[in-house]
């Protein structure tokens, strides 16, 4: 095939790391709720094997919670969001820390605190566009 002589050889990048732009704190919230329930079940059981499984699965879920919080923090939130919510960095940082604590311990209070912090991230997400801007067709209703 002949190369179109008008076609430039030089490529320039209108670059975006991840152009999907889909974000929702619900993702973090579901993993954190899972941790909360697992910790309840852990304390309600005397079966050592079951309790070991609870710990293993909770650590995995807590790590995922932390990942989802970090993605919102690093990728979704932009400088103009920080200008609007000066405590944005602090809330995200505390939420990541809380997720670490949930991973390390079987403290139900820590899981409660984590859920509260994710809700505060959710409030900031909603106030900066939320569903309308980041989910397809504004799902879920």
């Amino acid at each position, binding site marked *: 095939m002949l190369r179109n002589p*008008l*076609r430039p050889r030089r490529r*320039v*990048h*209108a*670059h*975006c790391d991840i*152009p999907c*732009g889909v974000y929702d704190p619900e993702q973090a919230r579901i993993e954190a709720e899972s941790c909360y329930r697992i910790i309840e079940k852990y304390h309600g059981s005397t079966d050592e094997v079951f309790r070991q499984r609870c710990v293993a699965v909770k650590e995995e879920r807590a790590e995922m919670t932390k990942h989802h919080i970090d993605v919102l923090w690093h990728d979704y939130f932009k400088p103009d969001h920080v200008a609007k919510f000066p405590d944005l960095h602090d809330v995200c940082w505390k939420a990541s820390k809380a997720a670490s604590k949930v991973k390390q311990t079987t403290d139900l209070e820590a899981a409660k605190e984590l859920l509260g912090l994710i809700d505060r991230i959710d409030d900031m997400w909603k106030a900066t566009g939320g569903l309308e*801007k980041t989910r397809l067709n504004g799902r879920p209703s």
Partner: protein
Amino acid sequence: MRQERGQRRPLSASVARGLALGTGLAAAGAARRWLDVVEVEGGSMTPTLLPGEWLLVECRSYTRRLPRIGEIVLAPDPRDATRELIKRVAAVDPDAGTLDLRGDAPEASTDSRTFGAAPLAGVRWRVIARYWPPGRAGRLT
């Protein structure tokens, strides 16, 4: 070239304009080394520039003056020197020798919000026109 001249009449005015811009100016400029043509890759400049569009760029203006806010420029990617970015100038700081680059699609652009201010010295090329597709051919910035 002969083929284009033969086809000029049946082609629409916009195609003729695109071809004239693309071939005429690029050929003249290439000889002088201050004009070049580039192809856009990626979507961070939408809706202004779409992926796959062909543009005319020049490197004479910035030997005489600084880039101005609102101009679309080429700049080396601060995170990957082998790659050239295309972004709009959002701010210029002559004292620091830097400028702020932004994509026109803030939700789908990796730019100065992520990698910080870019060095002015790296910005040599200014986008002046689009010559393909013909329907969207015309001057830019």
